């Protein structure tokens, strides 16, 4: 790892001023992506601003069906929140399958979505839940937040502070994990609620997380795993790499959708 300077922020305001004081600084949450990347010398920020001790960014609150998850909440704390499991167990199940126990003890939802890895789990949930990403300065709908591979709507020093959503009537997630990394080779999050049916796919799109209109129509007509049997998934916009071809991923999108509906 190249040399860096560590700073610990005590509040969101403190983090913003620490960040602006250094030329090439990055926010640090769980470090499960950033420290790993710095060890490989694929990132070399001169300064790190640690958000892990900002209390206001931690914890899950559920009021009625309105959910708020602080950006600094770890995957473990999302997975084990009883209040959240009461209204939206699918997101707890998703968090409980990210990486391994040690990664879940450090990694955070804010870090995960700010990173927007095309194979990360949370982006599919937030898109399907029509979640709102709250930052230090504004609120961004999930559809506008995830803009491409490792790309988001965040500007340079913007901090994700929380995500909020209304728990839908039904929600389910299924992923086909890469057997080595556990990231999603394809993961599908489905929801059914007042706003209709939403199907969001991660790990497969060549431009990152996306919704699938054909699957949504089929499931709106009939909410059942076999309703998707006749839907065509076009492989031309899907990723192809050493793990799986685009055709294989196209099939996985359907299979994971069926499993997600069955789990919902």
């Amino acid at each position: 790892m190249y040399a860096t300077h560590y700073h610990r922020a005590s509040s969101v305001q403190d983090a913003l001023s620490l960040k602006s004081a250094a030329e090439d600084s990055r926010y640090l949450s769980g470090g499960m992506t950033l420290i790993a990347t710095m060890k490989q010398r694929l990132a070399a920020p001169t300064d790190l601003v640690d958000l892990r001790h900002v209390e206001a960014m931690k914890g899950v609150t559920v009021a009625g069906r309105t959910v708020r998850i602080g950006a600094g909440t770890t995957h473990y704390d999302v997975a084990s929140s009883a209040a959240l499991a009461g209204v939206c167990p699918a997101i707890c199940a998703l968090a409980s399958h990210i990486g391994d126990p040690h990664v879940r003890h450090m990694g955070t939802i804010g870090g995960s979505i700010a990173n927007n890895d095309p194979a990360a789990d949370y982006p599919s949930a937030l898109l399907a839940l029509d979640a709102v990403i709250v930052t230090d300065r504004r609120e961004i709908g999930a559809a506008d937040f995830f803009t491409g591979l490792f790309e988001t709507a965040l500007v340079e020093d913007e901090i994700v502070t929380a995500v909020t959503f209304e728990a839908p009537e039904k929600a389910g997630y299924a992923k086909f994990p890469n057997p080595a990394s556990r990231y999603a080779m394809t993961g599908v999050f489905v929801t059914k609620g007042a706003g209709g049916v939403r199907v969001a796919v991660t790990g497969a799109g060549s431009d990152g997380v996306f919704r699938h209109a054909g699957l949504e129509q089929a499931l709106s007509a009939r909410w059942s795993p076999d309703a998707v049997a006749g839907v065509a998934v076009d492989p031309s916009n899907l990723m192809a790499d050493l793990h799986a071809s685009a055709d294989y991923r196209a099939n996985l999108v359907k299979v994971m959708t069926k499993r997600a509906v069955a789990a919902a």
Partner: protein
Amino acid sequence: MAKVKMTVNGRQVGSECDDRTLLVHFLRENLGLTGTHVGCDTSQCGTCVVHMDGRSVKSCSILAAQAAGSDIVTIEGLASGGELHPVQAAFKANHGLQCGFCTPGMVMTSVDMIRRHGAALDEATVRAELEGNICRCTGYHNIVQSVLAAAAEMGGAKEAAE
């Protein structure tokens, strides 16, 4: 260079290190606690697992500076007064190790797992919870048996704490 202070195995420690120093190197090189190992550079093998504020973490993917002020327990902190911790004893009794390289991480992971699941641990859960720990020798079978034996032995521990 900055002086980093934390509690390690119940003892207050402080040592000068670069901000980029990883917790695992701080433990091994600054404190001489070489029981915590480094087995990869991709955050995937789990030989470096220690407990930070009561939770298992990969000390190769955390800066010592991030851990400043926290309470760390390493493999050296488990046995008390020459008496092996029940998880260590179970690994010994069940032949849960061969070369022993992965063992510190496996034991720290198992202690954390038993803390969270208690006697309710079953084989499938143990296997799933060992996702982040790689062993090149045993084929995992005896490791799983060791964890189950320790969980049964420590059975009441979780309920008693609640």
